[in-house]
């Protein structure tokens, strides 16, 4: 199990387009990948767009990713990169 904090740094936050990208990416891995807000203990499945949108993560939100499974290392790297490149959007 890997835990990794990430920061939502794109302008629009984890809105529908970014959430769709995240779901598509996460679904490529067999590991269970969960997201939670630092300020709430609710944990959601990052392969569920309805879950991600429910986080209501706007720009500047700190999230914790928890990954568990065979490809957890690859998954962590790919997802961190997606956050770091701000989902290909403006900051």
């Amino acid at each position, binding site marked *: 199990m890997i835990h990794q904090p990430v920061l939502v740094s794109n302008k*629009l*936050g984890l*809105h*529908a*387009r970014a*959430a*769709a990208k995240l*779901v*598509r990416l996460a679904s490529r891995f067999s590991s269970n990948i969960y997201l939670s807000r630092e300020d709430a203990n609710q944990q959601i*499945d990052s*392969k*569920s*767009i*309805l*879950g991600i*949108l*429910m986080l*209501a993560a*706007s720009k500047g939100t700190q999230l914790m990713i928890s990954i568990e499974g065979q490809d957890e290392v690859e998954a962590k790297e790919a997802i961190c990169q997606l956050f770091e490149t701000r989902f290909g959007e403006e900051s």
Partner: protein
Amino acid sequence: MAAKPEKIYHGSGVSPGVVLGQVLKFESHSRLLLKVHVEDVEAEVRRYLRAIEASKEQLKALKSQLEEKVGSEHGIILDAHILMLEDRLLNADILDNIRTSRANAEWVLMQATDRLVLTYKSLEDEYFRDRHSDIEHVADRIQLNLSGDRPFSWEHLSGDQIIASRDFSPSDFATVDLQKVRGLVLESGGRTSHTSIICRGLLLPAIMGLRGFLDEVSTGDTLLLNGDDGQVIVNPGPARIEAVRRRMEAFGAYPADSSPAQFGTPALTKDGVPISLRANTEMMHELSAAKNCGAAGIGLFRSEFLYFGHPLGYPDMEEQLEAYSRLAREMSPHPVAIRTLDAGSEKVGGSPDLTQQENPSMGLRGIRLSLHSKETFLTQIEAIFRASCNGRIEIVLPMVSTIEEVWQAKALIDQVRTKVRKEIGPAIQAVPLGVMIEVPAAVFSLEVLAKEVDFLCVGTNDLIQYMLAVDRGNPQVAYLFQPLHPTVLHCLNRITTVAKSVNKPVRICGEISSNPFYAVLLLGMGFTQLSMNPLSIPTIRRVFREIPMEASRQIAQKALTFITAQEVHEYLTNAVAKLVPWDITSYAKEIAPPNGRNGK
């Protein structure tokens, strides 16, 4: 799952009675969704998955069309919709629920959607909160793909449905199975709306004006509806349910503060003056309510309800004859006043298309329409005369504004009477003729009109609207609909004074007479015949028993001296409450003018 928390809401109780039932959300006819027990759950699961696949194909096709037309950046929102269709959480939940509750996919999906939408609506961030509409779009598409193979049916309903809807028009009653409906909760509407009048007539407890209620409940939720005080409790606890069961055993559908009297017994004032209380009705199954509540006949039968939603557009002579005969027989020996067709904005066969009138309340309606479409009128009058041998029938002409209309109508009525007398001979009975006094012009030509007819009926609902130029259905001016406006009182006082001077009986046929305070005011002005929804009769009967005639006269005299509705209200509620030994203050609110807007 743990017991759902109890939630309490307050609206306006427009039709009394307490019922327990389950919510049936009525959004539109095509989207009535119900819980249906399914035998083969795996087939239902496959059905749901097929609908998901079909929806996905449709969205993919739409997405590529959209991308071609406006560019790929806009296709992304449909991408999000496709992902919602595939959403693991949602689908796992739905498939689970189909299997465990053995319910149809539509119902399970709706429940899941409602829950999700509720969660989203609670989000603080506006962008994320608005995503509930995406969920609704996606769910609508799945529902549409599910709906092809199983149309809606009332058959599977348990029979304790409480309809929850934004709006419910009188014609919607035709589309529901009334045997299975126990109550009605609406987001819109109020006490004087037509729908609420029908509810009272049907003994159907109803609450209106509960804004946002549909977002708070789901089909299948248990609901406790108290039409007496306007309280709705979602997911009531066992103690409350038990209390309601006991109450229903004791009172049945009647309001707790009244007990029905024997059919036809007159009400009496404290000093023994008899007062006639008749019932306003519009549907045949209200007759038993009228009898059970001790009505001294029907004061106003709104005949247009025989026309609305009729498969042919209008009932033929035979059908009307049967309806009027039954009315007369059931109410015999008490009279039944049939108001001739009063359509204005509805589609009625044999008439020009009225639905396009820009201002139907001042358009071709009532007697104007009858004189315009004479065949329809002649058929109705003929049915009334033929039915006259079954009891005591009276005719009331609606919306009269000139004496010529009365002359023309009388000529037609005479023509029919002669024809029917030839055919059925002496069995034909005298049918007294009355006019509705509901247009200001009729109030001021009352002396002339009264000479031509046998009796007068005051339609206070319309009269107040026309006097004050206020459409009570328009929320922006509804506050100006003030039954206690001094002008309205002077108008009513003029009517009773003139009626007395020309020695013609006059009856109030508006919902206002079902308000105890207003009823005492009317009594004091000299109105000794009132007609109201059947359910209010026991309450008014009981109130009158506490009121000496002279006291009501003094109250009316004094009430006529004020210059604002606010002052009248203050005085009236105090003066009447002093005479009645139990608490009737809840009725004071119904006739209260709004605070602040036009008060002092």
